[in-house]
């Protein structure tokens, strides 16, 4: 009679303990979290969702002024503003996924300490909420894209555009993976939270966001390998390549990025899994 237990609570744990049935049962919670994250950010603001537009636009303008006009970084045939806007839109999505999931445990300690639900719902909801923001920012990118076409600039996407979903997925996986690793590590030792703040703003510069990969290869061949090994560079560069048909794309780097992205995600998932059971004792 005692064999049909629904579940067991014990200290033993599997390496990856993802109960998809359970996550599915909590899908409404996931949707509500996503809704909450989107709607509450700009409550009691006048411009509301307009803020989604303002940040990438301003950043692009500044980048264009500093890197392209002052430092004269060449962006090839593409208008440098559009070049920057494309890079920033992609970067923003990764950054959003990463920073919002990296404090999952610390931020939700009060909630996690009271009720059980599959913890992975929280970072997952951040990634999906980020997707909505990304979609909105993509709209501005498209708007400017057509603006430049109307102005007579010859730009067109290339056949790589079919890889678009893969790039988005890669950004999400990598942001989520890194975020989960950091969030798990900061539960006991808070050192990393200090690092995150400035690390992401510096990471922009070795991820080829404000410049094309070709430029760094040409101007600083000695350290170009760092930029090239960075999987984020490959994503940003590939993203620009398919939309603007400008930049470097080769299959080997693409596969490399996919493998690294998957690995980071898996490691993140494992670390997150190990942490979620007991983190409340150490947070």
């Amino acid at each position, binding site marked *: 009679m005692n064999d049909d237990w629904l579940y067991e609570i014990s*200290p033993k744990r599997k390496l990856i303990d993802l109960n998809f049935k359970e996550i599915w049962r909590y899908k409404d919670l996931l949707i*509500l979290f996503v809704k909450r994250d989107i709607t509450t950010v700009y409550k009691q603001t006048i411009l509301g969702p307009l803020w989604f537009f303002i940040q990438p636009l301003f950043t692009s303008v500044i980048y264009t002024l500093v890197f392209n006009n002052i430092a004269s970084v060449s962006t090839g045939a593409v208008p440098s503003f559009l070049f920057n806007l494309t890079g920033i839109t992609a970067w923003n999505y990764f950054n959003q996924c990463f920073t919002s999931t990296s404090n999952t445990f610390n931020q939700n300690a009060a909630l*996690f*300490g009271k*009720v059980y639900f599959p913890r992975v719902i929280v970072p997952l909801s951040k990634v999906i909420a980020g997707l909505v923001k990304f979609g909105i920012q993509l709209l501005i990118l498209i708007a400017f894209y057509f603006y430049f076409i109307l102005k007579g600039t010859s730009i067109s996407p290339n056949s790589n555009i079919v890889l678009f979903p893969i790039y988005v997925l890669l950004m999400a996986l990598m942001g989520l993976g890194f975020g989960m690793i950091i969030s798990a590590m900061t539960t006991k030792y808070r050192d990393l939270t200090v690092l995150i703040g400035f690390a992401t703003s510096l990471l922009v510069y070795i991820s080829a966001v404000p410049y094309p990969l070709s430029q760094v290869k040409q101007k600083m061949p000695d350290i170009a390998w760092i930029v090239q090994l960075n999987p984020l560079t490959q994503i940003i560069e590939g993203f620009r390549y398919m939309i603007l048909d400008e930049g470097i794309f080769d299959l080997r780097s693409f596969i490399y990025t996919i493998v690294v992205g998957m690995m980071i995600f898996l490691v993140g998932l494992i670390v997150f899994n190990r942490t979620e059971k007991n983190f409340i004792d150490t947070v």
Partner: protein
Amino acid sequence: MSVILKAENISKQYRLGTVGTGTLSHDLNRWWHQIRGKEDPYLKVGAVNDRSAKASEDYVWALRDINFEVKTGEVLGIIGKNGAGKSTLLKLLSRVTSPTTGSIRTKGRIASLLEVGTGFHPELTGRENIYLNGAILGMTKPEIRSKIDEIIAFSGCEMYIDTPVKRYSSGMRVRLGFAVAAHLEPEILVVDEVLAVGDAEFQKKAIGKMQDLSTGEGRTVLFVSHNMLSIEQLCSRCIVLENGTVSYNGKTKLAISNYLAKEKQKDTKVSFPLSSKNIRINHFKVIDNLENIAEILFIGSQYKLNLGLKNIATLDQYIDVRIQFFSNEKLITTLNSYHRNETYLLKENEVVDLLFNIPKLPLSSGRYSLGIQIYNRSEKMVLYEHENFFTLEIKEGDFFKTGRLPHRKLLGKCLIDFDMQIRTL
């Protein structure tokens, strides 16, 4: 009835002190043992969970080898002193954290009601929060939708339901939170002290709902509370936790008396000075009319209860003191400074002696225990409370100044001063 939940040998170890460099070295050592396939070296150590003892080791067993079973439809009470491990046990049951050893197996979904209103988002409206909170507690959207009217009605917050929760009073937030939780439909519900909040009307409603859940709907409930009255009303069986182990498991009545008896044995002596939240008690003594300390009191004599206090908070506090006389756990009478309009503004660092003057002790002979409560009137906060703070021994005395000592057996609990007139007709 079938067993719905079974806990076997569950233990939970916590580390004492703060997380620091010592933790890192222990973590590395633990990891080193783990990768060599050896047992965790720190599981062998660990002190017994006794909050008042001095910390002698780095680890403590908040729970040690707990075994129990719960049957379907049963309401199980869990009682114990502060820090006996009740909340830790509930945390394990509600899967917030996992046990260090042992296992809990269950046949039903467990939902916990540890602190109502957790997960409310201040910017969302009451209605949106009902959905969010319901989902956090494990309900699906259709489930919530079918009950939303009922939930709103139960909370009694109809008027504010489309206003952001940040505009709610704290009482309203609790009402809304409990309303959502009360409409959960898990097989096992875990409840911790929620009834301590809300106004009297709402508490009654909440207890009623809890009773409905268990009796009417046959829900299994695990209920933790310090309120013996609600435990007695709700539970059919109780577990008494003491220092992290089960010291009693059985009928509620017996469990409660068992718990209270232990409590009394343990806490009968208090030593001074005694520091509590924001206040220090320097001494408590009973002095007679010659200003000597009275060891044994006599009926009818004059005594002063002298309580020495120091304000150790960094602010001035309005202090009220209540002293209660108990005989065999029955409340006999109360002296409360508030009733005499003697609420005192205790300045920062001020040291005072409060003297409760009893001109003619009217209690009959026997042993009395004194309970004390020191209350901050302005902050509405109990600074110190003890049910069994001091023991008094009262002996027969000349209450009526006639040299005749009333016989104890014929006297009753107290004496009334009276005089007599005899009119001849």
